[in-house]
């Protein structure tokens, strides 16, 4: 994993008290390689190691701290800085728009979020299924929330997503939180881009969450940029962190959108949602 890669790069610092410029450059290069292998994108890897190089030159390790530990701490704090401060969502007067690529976990996460706020805050939550592309989308959301008092709005026979959102808001818009689930899409599909623009206008969302699968690699950056341009991403949700994937690619989404990770998905059940915590995410990322 990433930790092994970083430790491997740092192992050459064993017993050293100070590095010369060439050694710092070598260290940065091997750390960059380790980051790329963990699905970080090129630009991010360069930024992190540039900061590492600067700080290795400027900072002295505290007394009793090895150069290895010092370097590891720098990398750790740079990752925390990259992730940014946490964001609290108040579950009142919110319309949440869920967007993302195909199969990332948007529909499942819509159900999870609905139950999260309903259970923890006792607020009235409604969800709108605005995916008109995927067969069985409404049935999926309905079944996920079958045992929940959350109101599920959908029009399985209607193929106009914008109309469903408009009708849905008219019907359930009085809820404290309304979550709108949309179809998976990629910015290379013009029709789906146009559809999202129309949905976005009608929804008047107070939060626009990008749902991204922990297994996504280098495409995460460009994909996130596309969604950010279209709707202005205000939060990122990383799913499937209960698998083997670590979510390195998702960090590009954070960097591109400037939006914090707000929740993480750790399973297929409605209860498998956790609030994002940066040190947990980073230690899992490091492996």
């Amino acid at each position, binding site marked *: 994993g990433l930790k092994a890669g970083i430790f491997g790069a740092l192992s050459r610092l064993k017993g050293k008290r100070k590095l010369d410029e060439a050694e710092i450059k070598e260290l940065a290069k091997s750390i960059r*390689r380790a980051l*790329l*292998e*963990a*699905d970080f*994108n*090129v630009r991010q890897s360069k930024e992190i190691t540039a900061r590492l190089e600067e700080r290795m030159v400027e900072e002295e390790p505290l007394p009793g701290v090895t150069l290895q530990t010092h370097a590891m701490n720098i990398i750790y704090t740079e990752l925390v800085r990259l992730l940014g401060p946490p964001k609290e969502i108040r579950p009142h007067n919110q319309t949440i728009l869920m967007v993302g*690529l*195909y*199969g*990332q*976990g948007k*529909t*499942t996460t819509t*159900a999870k979020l609905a139950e999260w706020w309903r259970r923890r805050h006792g607020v009235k939550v409604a969800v709108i299924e605005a995916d008109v*592309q*995927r*067969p*069985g*989308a409404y*049935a*999926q*959301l*309905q*079944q*996920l929330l079958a045992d929940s008092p959350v109101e599920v709005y959908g029009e399985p026979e209607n193929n106009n997503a914008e109309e469903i959102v408009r009708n849905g808001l008219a019907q359930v818009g009085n809820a404290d939180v309304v979550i709108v689930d949309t179809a998976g899409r*990629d*910015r*290379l*599909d013009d029709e789906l881009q146009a559809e999202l623009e129309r949905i976005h206008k009608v929804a008047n969302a107070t939060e626009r969450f990008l749902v991204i*699968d*922990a*297994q*996504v*690699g*280098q*495409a995460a950056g*460009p*994909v996130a940029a*596309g969604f950010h341009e279209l709707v202005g991403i205000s939060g990122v949700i990383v799913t*499937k962190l*209960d*698998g*083997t*994937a*670590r979510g*390195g*690619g998702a960090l590009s989404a954070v960097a591109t959108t400037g939006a914090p990770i707000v929740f993480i998905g750790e399973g*297929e059940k409605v209860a498998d949602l956790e609030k994002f915590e940066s040190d947990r995410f980073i230690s899992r990322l490091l492996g």
Partner: protein
Amino acid sequence: IIKDGPVFDELLEELELVMLEADMGSRALAAVLVALRSELIGSRLRRGADLTRVIEASLKRALRSLLSAGYWDFNATIDQMVDAGDTPVIVMMVGVNGTGKTTTTAKIAHRLKEEGKTVILAAADTFRAGAIDQLETHAERIGVRCVSSERGGDSAAIARDAVESAKARGADVVIIDTAGRMTNKINLMNELQKVHRVAQPHLVLFVGDALAGNDAVEQAVEFQRTLKFDGAVLCKLDTDAKGGAALSIAHATGRPIVLAGVGQGYDDLQQFDPDWLLQMMFE
């Protein structure tokens, strides 16, 4: 003579970056570059030849042979089996969550039906919300029979029922769609092995997501270890993904990518073409 040194290193590093940015896994890439080095260092550089071009051409050759290793033609293979009377031909779709198994099942069924074959689908994802509805809707639209049960039923039983039904009806092909699952969930991988034992498929297809980074290797290796798949389908190649995962999967498992998913429509399934992928990666 091509010499080892900073010039060669720098050129190789530039290509390495292109490949990493195209999602080729680091381990596969390292292996390819080591072989590239030993091939080129000490070899003759023709007069006027551009070293960058030579290295790139060599790299593409190595990647093409990696993708072509063990390659088999999906359609031709199904045809041969049907013609040989080895029916129903049983195909099983496996992979982690959300990669495109159900959609690919529908695409394959549609393609085979267009070629005049009778296809029966097994809705063996009895776990996920909306899974049976999804496949049943596809089956209705394509015009093929779908064997399913109540949600929560036994996955292996559905597979067996579909095969029995196919035998009784003299159908040509059965495609078993299974639930997505994470490879680190032992009980789910065991369940899949049970479905495999009961269904005894002729062909197992691992369905991977072209958007996946280094995790594509983890997934493929684990499915190869527990189930042994015959070929892989790489879906969502019509997205921002560059498709490097194809190389990592082929390298890690020695199994070929045989089909490419290039969209959500029933016709968006192509026979995998290594040159087409390489062109996409090097663009």
